[in-house]
């Protein structure tokens, strides 16, 4: 009986807060709108706390018409953070490379160069060389760039007033697309054209011709789908991990506003519990930022190694 009553109350009160187009009525806070505003891309940079502060509107450029396509290249919030992460990468690593050449020529470095060298050597030995084997040094640059670029984007999203560029599936999709191109081209280069075609049109040896044709017809779409599914999984994994953390934090904080009309003791209790949980989740988020950047880079190295050593 109590359960039915609770369900009826949820059904009655849930209509307002759950409607997809629900704007905030006077009483129910617009959680959905707040969530979309913080998670999705926007065209202004916000530096406001509780409504006070300033907002930098981003310029809106004329769309470029290329044949039938209309491409809008105006910078949005995520584009700004993308470029910021790229500039950070350049600003950290170009001076370190110069210092390694001139200042620490042959000696062990100290300071920031030492810290970066530890990570870079770990990646080169444990991730790139172990997975790719022969010819690995050519891919060290790409895998390391992936790792640090994604890491800086993830961490920039955790700072105050930051936005996570990797929380936009177009950004992770672009990174996955570049990985797909790198993997397939490196496969073509290592296996030759015939060897690469064998990765798509695979026929087990020693079958009579009718069965071979049947196997070809069945397995070719599967192989092609497999080639696309792996970078697609990379894209969704990074995007979902980054977005899920922010969604959880924003939902927990929004819970405080949902209880705002329930009396001062209840709302303060909810606020304390919510902030404690949000702190714990933010610490987990820092760990997840590093881990997901590492996993993207490591899986790229694994895919390159797999196609170069395609043993069929």
């Amino acid at each position: 009986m109590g359960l039915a009553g609770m369900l009826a109350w949820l059904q009655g009160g849930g209509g307002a807060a759950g409607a997809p187009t629900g704007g905030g009525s006077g009483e129910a806070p617009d959680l959905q709108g707040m969530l979309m505003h913080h998670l999705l891309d926007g065209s202004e940079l916000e530096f406001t706390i509780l409504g006070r502060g300033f907002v930098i509107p981003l310029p809106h450029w004329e769309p470029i018409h290329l044949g039938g396509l209309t491409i809008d290249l105006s910078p949005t919030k995520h584009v700004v953070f993308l470029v910021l992460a790229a500039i950070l990468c350049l600003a950290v690593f170009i001076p370190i490379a110069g210092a390694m050449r001139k200042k620490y020529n042959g000696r062990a470095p100290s300071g920031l160069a030492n810290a970066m060298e530890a990570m870079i050597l770990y990646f080169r030995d444990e991730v790139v060389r172990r997975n790719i084997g022969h010819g690995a040094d050519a891919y060290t640059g790409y895998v390391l760039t992936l790792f640090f670029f994604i890491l800086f984007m993830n961490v920039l999203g955790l700072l105050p007033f930051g936005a996570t560029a990797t929380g936009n599936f177009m950004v992770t999709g672009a990174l996955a697309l570049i990985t797909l191109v790198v993997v397939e081209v490196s496969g073509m280069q290592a296996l030759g054209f015939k060897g690469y075609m064998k990765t798509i049109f695979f026929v087990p040896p020693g079958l009579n011709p009718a069965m071979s044709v049947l196997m070809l017809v069945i397995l070719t779409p599967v192989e092609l789908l497999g080639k696309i599914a792996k970078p697609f999984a990379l894209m969704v994994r990074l995007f979902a991990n980054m977005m899920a953390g922010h969604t959880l934090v924003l939902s927990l904080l929004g819970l405080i506003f949902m209880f705002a009309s329930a009396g001062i003791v209840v709302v303060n209790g909810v606020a304390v519990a919510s902030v404690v949980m949000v702190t714990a989740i933010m610490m987990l988020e820092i760990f997840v930022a590093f881990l997901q950047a590492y996993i993207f880079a490591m899986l790229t190295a694994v895919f390159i190694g797999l196609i170069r050593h395609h043993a069929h």
Partner: protein
Amino acid sequence: MLYGMLAFFQDAGAAAGAGAFGQLGAGIGIGLAVIGAGIGIGQIGNGATQGIARQPEAAATIQTAAIILAALIEGAALFGLVITILYKFF
């Protein structure tokens, strides 16, 4: 109580059209996805602790492998989350 729940489901379907059942489906779907991830990561924990118990010198290697595998399984659960969000918002 059971009758109340059935009446609630029927009302939900009738009142807001397809959107209500879609949201119900989304909720159940993400719950099942998280159960799957929980079971998977539990299996990893089982294997990892047993491995470390049998050979404590390999603890660092096992720990690193366990964290990476857990992140990959988490990726699968988050696939479910992405589809659920599609259900809820579109």
